[in-house]
């Protein structure tokens, strides 16, 4: 990274600088701490996990002293491991169910229903939905634990007796995550909808388009970039979700709700299989990186 010392200063003026060495220092000094921290605690560990994923590194036993290069062994093991495949499928179900379908649709619906409502209605609805979002994930788990308990609120309301966390653990964690994450989509869509020009929608109404057609042919196409960006962001947030599922079901019963982050936790932190755990982490990072790149392409950052 170097400073463009070209004499023609573009839009912004710059503070006085001396020789070219001072020119380097004047950006290196303020950026230095950030670069060092990012290199040591983010880039370093990620690169190291790339290396370790190809070794048999463990934290205990002989391999902890002399880890060996094992090539693709961790990865061939990974894709033959029924528990990993199971976790991958469950993560997919979790992301599609709770983020793409749940949070996204519900967030959009709430934002649409709120249009043209009074201040009080809006702030009450916003307050309630955002409250679920502000609560820390372990507390959210405690809320849902009691809500879904055999004699809990949900069964009392529905008048049935059902051990949700045992009979339908995936449904339980998906519902809990929809509850916790909808606020984000709602806020994104409220912001996007407020920028949709009113006259366009009204013109369509004059031409005889009903509410359904106005939504489908005017409003949704106008906010499609927000929809795509929101889908990417909530997918990224949901992929790595750990605390909520871990506190609510612990991945169980058995492995019925063990998504990939929980499986990674079990392998790396319970069995201390760092090499294998890193291979799982690497798969998660690659999937996350792909979605992150898609997001960058999508939003076409102007000011960067």
């Amino acid at each position, binding site marked *: 990274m170097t400073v463009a010392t070209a004499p023609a200063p573009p839009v912004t003026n710059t503070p006085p600088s001396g020789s070219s060495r001072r020119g380097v220092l*004047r950006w290196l000094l303020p950026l230095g701490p950030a670069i060092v921290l990012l290199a040591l605690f983010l880039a370093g560990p990620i690169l190291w996990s790339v290396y370790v994923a190809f070794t048999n590194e463990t934290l205990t036993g002989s391999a902890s002293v002399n880890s060996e290069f094992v090539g693709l062994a961790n990865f061939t093991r990974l894709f033959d491991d029924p528990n990993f495949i199971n976790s991958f499928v469950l993560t997919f179900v979790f992301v599609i169910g709770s983020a793409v379908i749940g949070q996204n649709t519900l967030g959009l619906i709430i934002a649409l229903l709120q249009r043209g409502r009074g201040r009080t209605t809006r702030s009450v609805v916003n307050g309630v939905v955002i409250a679920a979002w502000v609560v*820390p994930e372990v507390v959210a788990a405690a809320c849902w634990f009691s809500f879904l308990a055999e004699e809990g609120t949900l069964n009392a309301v529905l008048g049935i007796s059902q051990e949700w966390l045992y009979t339908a653990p995936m449904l339980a964690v998906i519902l809990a995550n929809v509850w916790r994450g909808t606020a984000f989509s709602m806020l994104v869509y409220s912001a996007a909808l407020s920028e949709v020009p009113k006259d366009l929608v009204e013109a369509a109404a004059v031409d005889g388009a009903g509410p359904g057609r106005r939504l489908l042919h005017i409003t949704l196409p*106008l906010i499609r970039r927000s929809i795509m960006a929101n889908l990417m962001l909530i997918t990224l947030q949901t992929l790595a979700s*750990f605390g909520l599922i871990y506190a609510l079901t612990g991945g169980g019963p058995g492995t019925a709700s063990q998504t990939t982050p929980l499986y990674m936790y079990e392998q790396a932190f319970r069995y201390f299989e760092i090499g294998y755990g890193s291979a799982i982490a690497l798969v998660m990072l690659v999937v996350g990186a792909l979605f992150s790149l898609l997001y960058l392409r999508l939003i076409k950052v102007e000011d960067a």
Partner: protein
Amino acid sequence: MTRLAARGAAGLSLLIICLAFLGPFLWVVISSVQPEATLAAQPTLNFSLDNFTAVLTWETLILPLINSIIISGSTAILTVFVAGLAAYPLSRYQLRYRRHFMLTLLFTTGLPMTAVLVPVYAMFFRFNLYGSVPAMVLFLTASSLPFSIWMMTNFMDGVPVSLEEAAWVDGAGWVRSLTTVVGPLMAPGVAVVAIFVFVGQWGNFFAPFVLMDTPEKQPAAVTIYTFFSQYGQVAYGQLAAFSILYTAPAVILYVAVNKYLAGSFSFAGSVKG
């Protein structure tokens, strides 16, 4: 008439959505003031604050909350300091790789930090940092930096350069300019980033869960999980009281910056379609 019906239906839907979102909170709030609360949602007329006094002991709540304040607070302060410094050249100078750097930061915000913790844990183990609070704070700071630098740069871009030029004429360098002119002017932005990082770390469960070695160092996020898994079924009233006391600071801080955060949601929508 159909317009009225549609409005009514929309209002009814909003009401149902509100009730559904309130549902999971209900028993936590009620049982926190019920002396003998269990998981069974059967409120009685007995009101007592016994659950709150029961959890307000040094090991159960006070020490974990102090740990949370130390961990989240020092992460927030360090992040704001480092991100503020980094934002200055990114906002003010014409750097050749600025765009690459900013895009890399934005890209990094999308990476799953859960996955990064595996190598970080192994690294901490190898370099004898396992259980070290300062080392964990440095990691948490690094993980908060990409988003914070991004936000901080945007806030700094909002401070007109012309205001600084007077200081430069008087011979002030970037340090003076940053601390005496830009810093005070973007104080609201600094507060938003600090509170954002603080609230995020206040709820962070996974990092301290795997990086800290003894219960005495754990923040409330982990202690409440331990309490939940050990006594959640039997002493639900106390768990509820614990939840409320632990959640309150996050809610209060959120309300404080709510106004400013609302603007950042056009972040995903600010893009021209």
